[in-house]
C-alpha cells in the first residue's frame, strides 16, 4: 500500500504543485526500477578523509552527469573511489560501476571551490561528470533539454536524488518542483522545494510537450530558510561538455 501511495505521489510530483514547502520522499523500489528513474543512481566517493553520498544520472552510454562539488574539493583534491550504483534502492541496484575518469567543467575564470561553498557563483559552475570503461546501463541513458522555459514555466518537473540528511541515502527520493527562477548566471532556485544533502548531482527531470522525460538541471544546493532548491541549469555549454567527455569510454 505504501508503495502504491508513493507511486501516486511521484506522478503528482510531476504536475504543477502548490507553493508550500515540500520534503523529498522515497519513490519506492518499483518506480526506481522503471525508465527514466532507473537512469538515476547513488554516487559514493571519498574526499579527504571521509566518504560521501551523492547522486548522478546516466546521461550518455559511458557517462554520468553530477555536481562538480562531488568531484573536487580544494583541500581534498579530486574525489576517489567513485562508485555509481544505478537505480540503487535499499540493498540492491541494477548495476554498480567504478568511475575511471572524472571531470569538472571549469576553466581559469571558473572553478567550483574558491568562491565558497555557499556562493551562487560556485553553484552556477557546479557541474561535473564521471566516465566509465563499461556502460552502466547497457547503452541506455536519459536525454536532456536546454530549453530553459521548461524550468521557469509551470511545466511538470521534479528533483531526484539520494537524500542522506533526513533519509538514509539508500533510497531514491523525489520532490516536485515549482518553477525555478534565475538567481545568477546558470544557477536557479525553486521556492518551497526542499533538498537533502546527498541529492547533490541528481537530476531535475521534466516532462516535455511530447510526453517524454528529459534532464533540465542538476541539483547543486538546498536552503532551509527559506526552503529552496538550487540547480545548475542545462545549457549549451553543459550540453557540449556531456557530448565531448561523457559519450565515449574513459581513456
Amino acid at each position, binding site marked *: 500500500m505504501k508503495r502504491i501511495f508513493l507511486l501516486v505521489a511521484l506522478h503528482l510530483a510531476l504536475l504543477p504543485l502548490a507553493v508550500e514547502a515540500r520534503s523529498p520522499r522515497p519513490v519506492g523500489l518499483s518506480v526506481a526500477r522503471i525508465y527514466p528513474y532507473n537512469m538515476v543512481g547513488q554516487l559514493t566517493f*571519498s574526499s*579527504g*578523509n571521509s566518504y560521501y553520498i551523492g547522486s548522478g544520472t546516466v546521461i550518455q552510454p*559511458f557517462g554520468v552527469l553530477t555536481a562538480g562539488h562531488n*568531484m*573536487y574539493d*580544494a*583541500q*581534498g*583534491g*579530486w*574525489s*576517489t*573511489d*567513485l562508485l555509481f550504483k544505478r537505480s540503487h534502492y535499499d540493498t540492491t541496484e541494477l548495476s*554498480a*560501476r*567504478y*568511475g*575511471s*575518469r*572524472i*571531470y*569538472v*567543467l*571549469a*576553466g*581559469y*575564470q*571558473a*572553478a567550483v*571551490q*574558491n*568562491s565558497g561553498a555557499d556562493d551562487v557563483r560556485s553553484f552556477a559552475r557546479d557541474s561535473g561528470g*564521471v*566516465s*566509465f*570503461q*563499461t556502460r552502466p546501463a547497457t547503452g541506455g541513458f536519459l536525454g536532456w533539454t536546454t530549453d530553459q522555459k521548461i524550468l521557469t514555466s509551470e511545466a511538470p518537473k521534479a528533483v531526484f536524488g539520494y537524500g542522506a540528511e533526513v533519509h538514509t541515502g539508500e533510497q531514491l527520493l523525489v520532490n516536485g518542483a515549482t518553477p525555478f527562477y534565475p538567481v545568477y548566471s546558470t544557477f536557479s532556485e525553486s521556492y518551497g522545494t526542499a533538498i537533502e544533502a546527498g541529492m547533490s548531482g541528481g537530476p531535475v527531470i521534466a516532462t516535455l510537450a511530447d510526453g517524454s522525460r528529459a534532464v533540465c538541471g542538476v541539483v547543486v544546493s538546498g536552503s532551509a530558510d527559506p526552503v529552496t532548491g538550487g540547480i545548475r541549469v542545462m545549457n549549451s555549454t553543459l550540453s557540449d*561538455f556531456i557530448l*565531448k*567527455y*561523457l*559519450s*565515449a*569510454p*574513459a*581513456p
Partner: protein
Amino acid sequence: MARRHAVFIALVVAAGALYFLWRFAEETRERISQTSAAPAAATPASSQTTPASESLYDRIGQMLATLRGGSKALDLTSLRRALSSDPAAGIAAIRRFLATRDDAATGQRFAVGPDGVLEGAPTLRTFLLDTLGQLSRQTGDGAGAEVGREILAEKISPDEWALALRNIAWEDPKSRPFLAQKLHEMLDYEPWTATPTGGLLEAFDVAVFTGDASFVPTFDAMGHGGNTALQRAATVALDRLAENSPLTVMQYLNSHPASIADLPFVRADYFSKADLGNPEQRRAVETYLDRADVTLPEKTKFLHAIASPGSFVSDSLLSTSQPAGNGTGRYPAIATAATEWARTNRFPAVEEHVLWLIQRVTVAE
C-alpha cells in the same frame, strides 16, 4: 593702398592657416598618444595599402565610430567575416589600425571558445588581435607573432598580452622559453594581478602550453594568496600543468619536498596523472612512494586517485583538455606496475592499497 592692404590680409591669413595646420598636427599627435591602448605596430613592407585593405580599414574605422557612439548593435561577426574574406588585405588593415592605437570598449567579457578563439572580446583591439592571430595562422604570414612581440614590449593591457602570447605560440613552435619568461613577467606585475582581468586569468594557460615547471612554485604561492580569482586560476593551471607535463611536474615535486606539502591530497593528484607505461614517469612515481616525508594518507590517496584521475575541462587559449578515449588506455600499465610492486613487496606500508589498485584495474565490471 587697397592693394597693399590686401597683401597684408593675405599674409595674415596664410600665417593663420600655417599656424592652424601646425596646431592640428600637434593636437592629432597628442590625441593619438592619449587614446593609445598599446604600442604601435609598425606596418610592414609586405602590408602596403591596397584598395581591398583600404576598404577593410574603413570598415574597422566605422566599427570604432559605432562603438564610440555607444551603439549596442555590434556586428563584430560580420566584420570578422569581411576581414577573413581576403586574409592578406585583412591582416594589412588590422595592422594599420593597430598602429593608430585607437580603441573602444565592446561591452563583452573576455571569453575563450573552441580552439582558443575568442567568443567575447572586451575591446575592438582585442577583437582585432584575435582575428589577426587566426588569419596569420591560416596564411602562415607571421604577422600575428610579429605584432605579438611588439605588444609584449610594453605593459599596457593584460588582455592584449594574453592574445599576443597565444598568437606567438600559434606561429612559433620554438617560442616556449620566451612565452614562459613573458608569462612570469605578467604574473609578477602587481598592477595587473591586483585586479585580474579575464585575459590575465586565461593567460595562465600559457604555462600549461610551455610545460615549464618553474610555474609550480608560482601557482603554489598564488593558490595560497588572498585573491580568489588568482587562486582559482592557479588551481586549475597547476592541475592542467601536471596533466600535460606529468614528468616535469613530478620531478619538480620530488626535488622540492616542501612544495604543495600543506595540501597532501592535492599533491597526490599531481602524481596520479602519471602514465605508468612510461619508464621515466613510473620511476618518478616510485621515488614519490619511497619518500619518507610523504605521509601514508597521501600515498593512499595517490593509489586510489590513479585509478580515476580528474580533469578540469574548458575551452582554453592554447592547451586542449583530455578528450574521451577508447577505453583501452591506462589500466594495463597500472596493473603491470602495481602487480610488480606487490610481488616484490616494494611499498609494504601501503600494500593493502596496492592490492586494491590491482583489483580495481584488472577485475572486469
